[in-house]
């Protein structure tokens, strides 16, 4: 009686932006900050 969601592995946003030559522009306009979700959640 398991309720299992299979997860598939895809390309990350970073990989895709790099392939399209957009990564530098993205990081310039949106400085990467892995802490941002922890700031905003108020935890």
């Amino acid at each position, binding site marked *: *009686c*398991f*309720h*299992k*969601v*299979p*997860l*598939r*592995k*895809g*390309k*990350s*946003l*970073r990989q*895709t*932006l790099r392939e*399209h030559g*957009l990564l530098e522009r*993205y990081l310039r*306009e*949106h*400085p*990467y*900050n*892995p*802490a*941002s*979700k*922890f*700031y*905003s*959640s*108020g*935890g």
Partner: protein
Amino acid sequence: VSSEPLENYMDNEYFGTITIGTPPQEFSVLFDTGSSNLWVPSVYCSSTSCGNHNRFNPSASSSFVSTSQSVEIAYGTGSMTGILGYDTVNVAGINVVNQIFGLAETEPGDFFYYMPFDGILGLAFPSISSSGATPVFDNMMSEGLVAQDLFSVYLSNNGQSGSFVLFGGVDSSYTTNGISWIPLSAETYWQISMDRYMNLNGEAVACTSGCQAIVDTGTSLLAVPNNALSIIQSTFGANSNGEISCSVASTLPDVVFYINGQAFPVPPSAYVIQSNGYCTLGFEGIDIPTQSGEIWILGDIFIRQYYVIFDRANNMVGLSPLS
């Protein structure tokens, strides 16, 4: 207004499918133990960027109930905005009726076009849920939809297939090496107390007096305080970008996280990332101000080494080594 930042999801690679509404509308979502809200794009977002994703259409769902409460999804310097609504959400065959979720209405720019998933399903605690929205798993528990008040996550080491989130149970075929149970230090994120971090040759080099750690499927790397990152990079002989020589990568020892008196090693095959001929340590800097000490984030690099059980009934995290 609730807020869900997106820019820190740029390295995530694992997604699953859920449906929302009657009849069901399908969405690819990131199952994120580091947040608590569910949101997906909606048909009210009409730009080209949103057009590359599945969008929820409330008028096509007979079970949708609208609200007037707004939601904001921060995205770098821009944001997606939308509204909160209620509908039936199906996750792994479990129908959660009257589940609150965010319907994104506007989008911030062309980058969103490339986001590999449609939305996010948060699996952390209600105490950090924006707008006080009840998380999906809390509704599963309160409605008695799961056999046990826990879920578990397996991320395949080769990253290609077999990864899953299991609701309401533990797959014993993944716990043959035993389960180490660790009590939570806070009921916000899946937060635990870490004793210390040991690097190379068994030397404690960071978190030496103890620190806090969050087990987060929504973070890809091992995120550590910036001062610890400098020390770690130095001990590996890495440059400030975390780059090391690929010729030595396979000879490196395990790094070890000591948690609740037990050692949880991570081998170099997991923490060294090889790409385009370069080798980089899978650590990134993160500074989160907190009263409970410095915070480390144990992301997918760590989770791929352990079958992780997120036990809401007992407020514990269970870790079972996968090799």
